[in-house]
């Protein structure tokens, strides 16, 4: 069955990003996949409240605001997912007694917004120059009623799907998988598979998401390298 937007089943939507679009934060990014679009602004390392202060590492705080309506429990859930994903990747021990604050604002949610939030966060953290162990790329996949697995589902597809799967991988892991390694040797940083599915469905989505994440990572690389080349032309040339 063809997809409503005539995409191939393993085809992600067109990606678009802007780095450093907000001028009052330390680092920012907009990440869009089709009409799903997320802003992320990062402050850090900044001063932390004495109550929260950790003596051996930076505190990581994530705030998520939805595209419309008031912030609620749903958003706390996304915040906890993003915080968990980046807790190890941010080298928090390099900036003890400080705060790294990640602010995410959904602009439009047309499916796979969790993955977009993670991708936007990676780009904003890189833009802010927060020390990172690795970049993280996320992708979603849905198993439809007819059993077909489609990547980067839209809101419509996700609502009608049997199950929806979101995975995030560290860059080096994706690199290893790309160089001929089987997906069995990769280790996702974040997994959220929900609905009604079998282990085979899970494995199928895992592979599809890994391949999509590979494409997302390549896209982010190009975008960031482009910005660095533009900025440093004087010191390079």
């Amino acid at each position, binding site marked *: 069955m063809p997809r409503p937007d005539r995409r191939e089943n393993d085809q992600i939507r067109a990606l678009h990003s802007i780095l450093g679009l907000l001028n009052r*934060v*330390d*680092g920012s990014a907009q990440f869009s996949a089709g009409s799903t679009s997320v802003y992320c602004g990062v*402050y*850090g*390392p*900044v*001063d*932390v409240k004495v109550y929260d202060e950790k003596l051996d590492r930076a505190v990581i705080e994530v705030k998520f605001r939805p595209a419309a309506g008031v912030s609620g429990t749903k958003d706390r859930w996304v915040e906890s997912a993003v915080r968990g994903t980046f807790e190890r990747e941010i*080298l928090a021990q*390099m*900036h*003890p*007694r*400080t*705060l790294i604050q990640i602010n995410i604002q959904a602009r439009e949610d047309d499916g796979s917004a969790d993955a977009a939030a993670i991708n936007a966060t990676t780009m904003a953290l*890189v*833009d*802010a*120059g927060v*020390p*990172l*162990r*690795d*970049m993280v790329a996320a992708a979603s996949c849905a198993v439809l009623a007819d059993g077909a697995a489609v990547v980067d589902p839209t809101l419509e597809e996700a609502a009608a799907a049997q199950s929806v799967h979101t995975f995030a991988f*560290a*860059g*080096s892991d994706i690199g290893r998988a790309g160089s001929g390694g089987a997906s069995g040797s990769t280790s996702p940083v974040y997994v959220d598979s929900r609905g009604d599915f079998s282990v085979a469905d899970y494995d199928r989505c895992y592979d599809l998401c890994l391949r999509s994440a590979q494409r997302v990572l390549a896209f982010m*690389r190009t975008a*960031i*390298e482009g910005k*660095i*080349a*533009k*900025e*440093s*032309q*004087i*010191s*390079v*040339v």
Partner: protein
Amino acid sequence: MAETKVVLPGDIIDTSLDSDEEESSVLRLGPGVAQIDEQVSAVAAGVLHSDNEKKQWWVVSNKRRYVPAEGEPVVGVVVARHGEGYRVDIGSAQGALLPLLAFEGATKRNKPNLAVGTVVYARVAVANSVMDPEIECYNSHTGKSEGYGELAGGFMFKCSLGLARRLIDSKAPVLNALGSGIPFEVAVGLNGRVWINTEAPATTVLIANAIKNSEFLDAKQCRQMVKELLEKQ
């Protein structure tokens, strides 16, 4: 030897040396490079630089948030006065401490008195992860002011740390081009703050704009931009 390789966080840096020295030799990892697990990898996005002679690797990246490093010149604003010193905002996570006597020739009886809001040009004296940063308005090794001290009058604005680093170079094209056209005073802090002083406010605005505009321009474009701005004046 300069290389122009762009690296991103997580990229593994090949630290094997061209020369056939023993492997146990010490590697020096600068900003943006760290040892993760068993490998040396980039932790920030930027241009990788290396010096094979000194076995040094570092990444030049552009940031907006300042993390103090010892010996760097900074431009700060006095935000409070305590018994033992001033609290100065230099854009880092914690405010920096400027001791009352950290000025050239200052004694207990004769020391400068800075009001809240004063802009100072200082040098980072203490910067580590455990203590709040400390700055001084003289070089404590020589006892001379070396240009540090209160910046009276003028205008201060912020820019990216990458631009500040390029401006502090005496060959910075935008400053040289401006300098050949109009007289002005400038103090560049590596914390991404630039202070300028001229005779007329209009000139101050012109210079501030020229510096901000130069962020993405190369030397030739800088000269062209400054030329156009000066003609318009």
